[in-house]
């Protein structure tokens, strides 16, 4: 699982430009299970279907990551950018970024009178170019950069870029690897454009029309020095979401997830995320409404160049989802 996560997290996949990560995921899927029907839809969602009877369940993990979009190149070859997804200028300053073609850049800032003035429009990417032409050739306007890849471990902890949400993608792959046969159909969806408004999940749910859905994503923690209040910690188990800004969990789906965790002795936490949303936000409002739940992997420093998770939470998230899918009352109790 760790190796899979290492490969996925270091892949390039900004929102709207998910080609590389999709290719990587397609390879992983093909190696795992020959019986999966794999396709890409009009928006770029990668859908792997495990056939079954008329009941359908959708599992979603977004494969896109936050990025920077080049908007302007000046005479000296400095690149101005627009954020793709939620960026904090304080976390960008000094970060190393990489473009699809492998060009590296670092982020500098204008001279500021006041530290409070540090806004995104005071920042620029320096790729080392010495002219506009050189910059344009390597990173034309409209190209995107993501945080530079790295992957390291310390005990059970993993540090990397884009664990949001390659961790969720890894959980889905692990479920495919371990799930015993079930009667119903499962659509594993690696969604696009979650970071810019839960967009891929919306169209995927519309076309697949599931009876039940579960999204897997990351969530914040409150376990760092002077952190804002949040009763989620690394290493205490996957979090079962109660609420975020986009979504209030279906009471029965949430209860089923909790029941599963308790009966299988899987540690879990309950998550109330006061900011942010997940794919579940658009999935549950699709068509006549879809009962939906969320399993979250506790993650520190989300949307920074170095996010940290605990490997045990990742494993337990996969275990929880796998056990949940085998629950005998899955559809009848909704």
């Amino acid at each position: 699982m760790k190796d899979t996560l290492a490969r996925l997290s270091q892949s390039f996949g900004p929102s709207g430009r998910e080609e590389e990560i999709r290719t990587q995921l397609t390879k992983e899927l093909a190696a795992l299970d020959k019986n999966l029907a794999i396709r890409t839809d009009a928006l770029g969602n990668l859908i792997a279907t495990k056939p079954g009877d008329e009941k359908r369940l959708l599992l979603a993990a977004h494969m896109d990551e936050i990025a920077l979009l080049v908007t302007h190149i000046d005479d000296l070859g400095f690149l101005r950018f627009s954020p793709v997804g939620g960026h904090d200028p304080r976390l960008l300053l000094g970060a190393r970024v990489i473009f699809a073609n492998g060009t590296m850049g670092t982020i500098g800032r204008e001279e500021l009178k006041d530290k409070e003035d540090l806004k995104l429009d005071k920042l620029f990417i320096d790729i080392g170019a010495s002219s506009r032409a050189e910059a344009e050739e390597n990173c034309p306007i409209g190209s995107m950069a993501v945080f530079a890849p790295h992957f390291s471990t310390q005990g059970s902890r993993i540090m990397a870029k884009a664990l949001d949400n390659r961790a969720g993608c890894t959980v889905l792959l692990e479920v495919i690897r371990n799930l015993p046969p079930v009667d119903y159909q499962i659509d594993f969806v690696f969604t696009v454009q979650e970071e810019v408004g839960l967009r891929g999940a919306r169209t995927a749910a519309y076309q697949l029309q599931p009876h039940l859905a579960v999204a897997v994503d990351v969530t914040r923690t409150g376990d760092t020095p002077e952190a804002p209040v949040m009763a989620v910690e690394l290493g205490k188990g996957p979090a079962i979401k109660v609420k975020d800004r986009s979504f209030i969990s279906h009471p029965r789906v949430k209860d089923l997830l909790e029941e599963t965790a308790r009966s299988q002795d899987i540690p879990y936490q309950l998550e109330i995320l006061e900011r942010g949303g997940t794919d579940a936000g658009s999935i549950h409002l699709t068509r006549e409404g879809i009962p939906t739940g969320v399993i979250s992997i506790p993650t520190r420093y989300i949307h920074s160049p170095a996010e940290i998770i605990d490997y045990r939470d990742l494993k337990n998230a996969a275990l929880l989802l796998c056990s949940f899918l085998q629950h005998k009352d899955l559809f009848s109790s909704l």
Partner: protein
Amino acid sequence: MLGIFSRGQQKLKGMEKTTNTKEDKSLEYLDLLRRLSQEQGVSGREAKVAESLLKTLHPLVDEVERDRLGNVIAHKKGEGPDPHPRVMLAAHMDEIGLMVTQILEGGFLRFTPVGGIDLRTLPGQEVLIHGLSPLRGVIGAKPPHLQEPGERKKAIPGDELYIDTGYSKKEELEEMVPLGTMVTIERDLQLLANDLVAGKALDNRAGVTVLAACFQELTRLKHRADVYGVATVQEEVGVRGAMVSSYGLAPDLAVVIDVCHGDMPGVAEDEGFPLGKGPALGLGPHVHPRLFTTLKETAQEIGVPYQVEPSPTPAGTDAWAIQIAREGIPTALVSLPLRYMHTAVETLSLKDLKETGRLLAAFIQGLEPAFVEGLSCY
């Protein structure tokens, strides 16, 4: 009063004249409003209020059920030959509230708002915590004597508020109050002068009461339209129940019943509507002009007072979601003027409530297939 009618008795009622119900019967819906106001139903956890409503609506309609997201959908069939215009009435049944986010050492509960609750009005409130079994609590505040200079002039920030249940051990509460437990304000409905009532969650249990009142009126009237009354979920967190129920029903037209701001000191005349002067008919891009006109003319015909609420923006009601469901649904908005929105003393007029039910029933009575066809001809 609604609950005690059987269908047979309603038919007898239909023999009476319905025109002079205005003065003597404005208290008719007080008991229902009281019951609905007191029920718990914070956005996303509406099971209790839905259960109560199912019982209320059951004798008034042909069928009533909950959909996959929990919306209560009551269907009363139209009479006469096909086709039957399909009209959706929507009133959200969820209420704003609080959600427990953390249990502190010493037994205090931290919370986050669900919906746009006015945090400044929370200190001093009694609350009900809907954990494994209901638990009482209070939201306290540091006494004036102990406040730092200047502290008294400011509202307490939301993340410094907490609930006191009397329990002193974190472990005890952890068993009874799982994180994510909903909390509602404890408040009895008060009858004020001039048929005004004050209480919690009148936004929008008053609208739901109008829905029931409309069905009650319809039992005495002949109508060709198939009527779908929907008590929607999760309006306060983003008009979510309306989005999926309107998709599912695909009605020909919809009327949303919600509340608008009442007149009160400190609020400009054009921002607050007087109480007791009838419902406010929404007018703006989110409202189909012909539905507005027809509602207005119906009100004039049957002598229901009304006001006009022009709004350039969708004003955050279910109408916003319904109008753009599927291929688009002609939608109207009817609002009850209400003072002190999103506090525990929301105040409105029972007269307005009753009159709105009457207006909607008369509007539905007049719905013919030709009118529905005309809605797409501008």
